[in-house]
């Protein structure tokens, strides 16, 4: 019979249990959904890399040959070596259609994913990226003519297949900062096709696969010793942006993906504990009756644990199943621009397990704690209403003149509000949490917008960025500065180097800039032109942390092909730069050759400048400012999407929390409300008395939520290391978050207001307190 009572009980407690189930569901959705992103991206990319045997390292160099490959393959930990020729190509009749051309002896490493046809089997065939081929209307068997950029060699090859390449996942280069698969593609040909360029069996790149546990530093040292000055650059998979883009996007999200679910779960736990607490506390009379009838404590405990289990049973599966769709949506968003073969998003069962454990722990644990404490009381104690607490006067009452001036309604509301401190605290903390979540989502968006604006307005005050050939002469630079319409020019040289400290080593890009950079400020938030220190280098904060150095310490640099070591002071650590920066004067003082790789120009006449640039053979390509900025902003928008989703969930959670708290408070006071009805209070008067309390809680929660949100936002922004975001607190974000939370509170009040109409005066007053 006790179980019959259980099911009848459920009807009474349904609305409260459902609201907690929804909160649990949201927490599970967020947890499994966001964990699923990490899981699925790792899975999709892991499979893709493994199936296509993607290289772990790309060694770029000069004069590489088969002997080098043999030497490399004998090194410990290396599992595969593939030499190749990498060249830039373009459509013979449209130089705007460009390709990266790979001439390979075999397809053992970086095997392209075939969409149609097959891989080249002779020196007359070409395998093209599918979207590029489709955009040019090329089909299998068609002949395609290309020109090797800068070399003037024309090739006519037959299309044997089309497909995708994990190496060109996010296919960008210096002139195409964001992927345009229809205009910039890749092509694989037999090495013989390109033999005329470097000579037979001469290569400019070697792809290497290694054992998983081979340390990067050990590999670099070994390659350096083996190939010596032939090596220009060693690129690891994780540093290869086109190949690693999606993984990097996922890594950028990791702080958010870890932080938000934790917060959502904390919120769910808070609600779970308070709901179960009240549910069981309100049933103390029933518990007393069961005990008096002779039911064992264990039976009663199970009776109430089943309520909690029901919350898990309803909330968890729905949340876990929905989580996959959140993962799918976000993976789809961050994979925008990535040329991926068809992939399937799967459930992250490990996350299911963790979420199930967390949910069960929160729900059953809180129910167990509350029920246990009540079961310790004697049946007689349980059957008596909980004795009222001694402190019944509120602080305001002690200020006599003020208290006496208050109207009756105000007194009633203040008493009611402050008497039950636990309820007040739960409500305020719950709403503050939700407010903080909503606020944080808006604030992160603001920080991202500020970064975008800073990029657009401060960093890039140039009009055109020009990529230069290596080996350009000083005279040629001068032709740039005197090109038609050019009003200002700044040069920049990017190279790679080893950075050593006493016990750490790292490779990074070293940018040699003008002493004073004014056209392309690399600190997006700096208002004034940036002067590079003359006495040392500027180091990216992450890199400095990795090397364990601070401002004032020294680091040692070594460049590929140069056996000398250069020791420099770390003059500045900055979270906005990428890699290391030195001024041109300092670079020259080291006795190093200055060979700029890029130029930033401002111009009065962009059309004339672009015409001239097309004529200069030392110019590899150029982009205008908008293109560069757009690429950066596009990448950030992927993160924004995640933030938008979190806004929706944060808001949803806020809504449910406020509803849950409101409805519990309503049920607890139903007897008082019925009394007010009998006394002749009109509906609107009762609503005013009752709902004012909810509004006071909401206002208090919103006010507490502002500093909480600011603190959480600060923590999160500073932990998103992939982007140099700054904490931006705008009145708009505060206003919006307050508005959203208050709108939820008012909406919930409306719902509870409607529920008041359903109060059965007689029924409510019949039961004994």
């Amino acid at each position, binding site marked *: 019979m006790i179980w019959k009572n259980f099911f009848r009980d459920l009807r009474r407690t349904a609305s409260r249990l459902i609201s907690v189930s929804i909160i649990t569901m949201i927490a599970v959705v967020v947890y499994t959904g966001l964990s699923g992103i990490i899981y699925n991206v790792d899975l999709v990319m892991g499979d893709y890399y493994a199936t296509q045997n993607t290289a772990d390292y790309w060694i770029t160099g000069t004069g590489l040959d088969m002997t080098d490959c043999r030497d490399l393959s004998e090194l410990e930990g290396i599992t595969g070596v593939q030499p190749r020729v990498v060249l830039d190509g373009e459509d013979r009749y449209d130089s705007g259609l460009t390709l990266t051309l790979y001439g390979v002896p075999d397809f053992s490493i970086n095997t392209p994913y075939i969409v149609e046809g097959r891989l080249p089997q002779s020196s007359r065939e070409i395998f093209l990226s599918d979207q590029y081929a489709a955009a040019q209307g090329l089909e299998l068997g068609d002949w395609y003519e290309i020109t090797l950029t800068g070399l003037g060699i024309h090739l006519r090859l037959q299309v044997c297949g089309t497909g995708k390449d994990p190496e060109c996942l996010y296919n960008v280069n210096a002139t195409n900062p964001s992927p345009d698969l229809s205009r910039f593609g890749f092509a694989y040909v037999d090495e013989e096709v390109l033999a005329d360029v470097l000579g037979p069996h001469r290569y400019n790149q070697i792809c290497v696969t290694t054992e998983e546990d081979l340390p990067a530093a050990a590999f670099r040292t070994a390659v350096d010793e083996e190939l010596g000055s032939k090596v220009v650059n060693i690129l690891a998979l994780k540093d290869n942006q086109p190949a690693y883009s999606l993984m990097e996007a996922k890594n950028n999200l990791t702080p958010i993906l870890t932080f938000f679910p934790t917060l959502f779960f904390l919120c769910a736990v808070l609600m779970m504990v308070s709901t179960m607490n009240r549910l069981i506390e309100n049933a103390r009379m029933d518990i007393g009756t069961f005990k008096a009838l002779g039911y064992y404590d264990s039976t009663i405990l199970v009776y109430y644990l089943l309520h909690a289990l029901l919350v898990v049973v309803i909330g968890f599966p729905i949340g876990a199943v929905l989580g996959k769709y959140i993962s799918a949506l976000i993976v789809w968003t961050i994979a925008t621009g990535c040329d991926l073969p068809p992939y399937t998003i799967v459930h992250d069962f490990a996350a299911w397990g963790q979420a199930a454990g967390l949910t069960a722990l929160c729900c059953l644990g809180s129910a167990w704690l509350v029920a246990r404490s009540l079961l310790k009381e004697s049946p007689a104690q349980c059957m008596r209403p909980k004795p009222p607490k001694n402190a019944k006067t509120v602080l305001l009452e002690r200020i006599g003149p003020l208290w006496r001036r208050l109207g*009756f309604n105000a007194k009633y509301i203040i008493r009611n509000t402050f008497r039950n401190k636990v309820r007040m605290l739960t409500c305020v903390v719950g709403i503050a949490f939700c407010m903080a979540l909503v606020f944080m989502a808006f604030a992160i968006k603001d920080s991202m917008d500020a970064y975008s604006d800073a990029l657009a307005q401060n960093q890039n005050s140039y009009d055109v960025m020009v990529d230069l050939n290596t080996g350009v002469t000083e005279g040629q630079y001068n032709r740039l500065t005197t090109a038609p319409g050019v009003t200002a020019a700044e040069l920049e040289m990017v190279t790679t180097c080893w950075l050593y400290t006493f016990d750490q080593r790292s490779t990074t890009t070293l940018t040699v800039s003008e002493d004073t950079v004014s056209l392309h400020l690399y600190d997006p938030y700096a208002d004034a032109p940036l002067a590079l220190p003359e006495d040392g280098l500027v180091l990216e904060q992450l890199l400095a942390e990795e090397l364990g150095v601070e401002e004032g310490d020294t680091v040692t640099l070594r460049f590929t092909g140069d056996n000398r070591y250069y020791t420099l002071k770390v003059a500045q650590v900055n979270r906005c730069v990428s890699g290391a920066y030195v001024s041109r004067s300092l670079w020259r003082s080291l006795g190093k050759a200055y060979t700029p790789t890029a130029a930033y120009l401002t111009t009065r006449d962009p059309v004339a400048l672009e015409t001239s640039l097309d004529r200069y053979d030392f110019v590899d390509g150029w982009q205008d400012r908008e293109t560069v900025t757009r690429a950066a902003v596009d990448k950030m928008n992927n993160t924004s999407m995640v933030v938008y989703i979190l806004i929706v969930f944060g808001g949803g959670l806020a809504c449910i929390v406020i509803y849950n708290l409101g409805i519990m408070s309503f049920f607890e006071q139903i*007897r008082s409300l019925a009394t007010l009805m009998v*006394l*002749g209070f009109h509906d609107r008067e009762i609503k005013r008395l009752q709902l004012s309390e909810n509004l006071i809680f909401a206002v208090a929660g919103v006010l507490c939520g502002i500093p909480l949100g600011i603190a959480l936002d600060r923590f999160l922004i500073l932990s998103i290391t992939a982007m140099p975001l700054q904490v931006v607190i705008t009145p708009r974000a505060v206003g919006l978050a307050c508005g959203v939370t208050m709108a939820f509170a008012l909406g919930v009040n409306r719902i509870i207001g409607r529920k008041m109409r359903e109060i059965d005066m007689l029924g409510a007053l019949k039961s004994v307190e």
Partner: protein
Amino acid sequence: MSGVRLEHVSREYIMGKTVIKAVDDISFAIPEGKYTIILGASGAGKSTVLNILGGMDSPTGGKVFVNEKEISSFNKRQLTQYRRESIGFVFQFYNLMPNLTVEENVELASQICKNPLDTRQVLRMVGLDDRRRNFPAQCSGGEQQRGAIARALAKNPDVLLCDEPTGALDYVTGKAILALLYDLCRQSKKTVVVVTHNGALAPTGDVVIRMKSGKIESFTENPNPTPVQELEW
């Protein structure tokens, strides 16, 4: 005629397929200012009659007049207004607001009606002036019921309705409460209707209505009621 009048009043409750007749075609009239006892066993329909008189429930048939106003035709809002201005209700379990002091509970009622009585004066009438700053939880059952009576009286209602007002009290306290109600009726000339299952109280009423199975079993007017103080049971 002023006072309370019921004409062929019925109240049916539909529970699934079953129709329960809580009150079945009853008619009676209570003149103004009379101390009335409604007697009956559990389920006789006496509380339903009281709820209908108090504007907390509406009849499904018949007409109810209170001081010549037909309350059975009132809509929800009119019923609220009626409860607000014309009715004082005393419950078996007091139903005082736990967060308000006794005095504030009385103010709760007096602040919403047109001609309320002075709170302190009412509290003195029920003998609770010295306990007025106490919260309900700090009062005994008898004191809480006095508080509830004070709250009902403060509205200066036309009719005071009491549903088993001594049901939760011991003999001595219960007798004191009934005596209070009796005296108030005599002093204020207000109609007081007391619902009880205790037949021993019948001699105290000016009017005694006995109910059984939703019908009136007997309607007696008592020209010489026995004061509550003199009654033993």
